[in-house]
């Protein structure tokens, strides 16, 4: 099974998330900052 682990690991493709996903995460973070700022 150790062999299976290493074989599968080698097969992992190099993929990237969509730009929209990244944008959403960054916008979410900024929105949270604004909310936190307003609470202060």
């Amino acid at each position, binding site marked *: *099974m150790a062999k299976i682990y290493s074989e599968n690991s080698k097969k992992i493709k190099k993929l990237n998330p969509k730009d929209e996903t990244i944008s959403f995460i*960054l916008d*979410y*973070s900024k929105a*949270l900052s604004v909310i936190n700022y307003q609470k202060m």
Partner: protein
Amino acid sequence: MIMRKELISDATLVSSYIEGDEFSLEILIKRHKQRVYSFIYSKVYDRDIAEDVFQDTFIKVIRTLKRGKYNEEGKFLPWVMRIAHNLVIDHFRKNNRMPKFDNTGEFSIFSVLSDTSLNAEKALIKDQVETDVRRLIEELPDDQKEVLMMRMYQDMSFKEISERTGVSINTALGRMRYALINMRKVIEKHNIILTN
């Protein structure tokens, strides 16, 4: 500019982000997005689900950092990978299924359990596998469970097991065999994941 970004450590970027520099988060995400996303995709094999899990991972990262709960300085990526791993497990639990393990050829779960050369990412999966295996062992009849535990976890010989349990070596061997057969049946019946 790109050169400069690469010189800034994760720990520094995390600190800057906690102090309010949103751009630091962007650098962190762009630096690690491929590793994190590829890891998630390698488990779920679905681009849309991988996007969702990736998004949830960083939402959790953001919330933890902004709450000031992060205390793993210098270990940002392993921490993110652990969150991603847990969310992948949650995803499969919610859907009441685990990815299938193609159980062909020589298979010994115990060869993995004793492998100390696994990297951090694999170690996380190894933990989950160990938990799953323990759960399977608990389902075995007591006599089979006893032999399997002695053999695999206490490294006892069948002669020692025979002496300890008061049965013949052949009976001990038979119980071990049935224990493995029963575990395999449960694995197949429930499509339990025992690998990545």
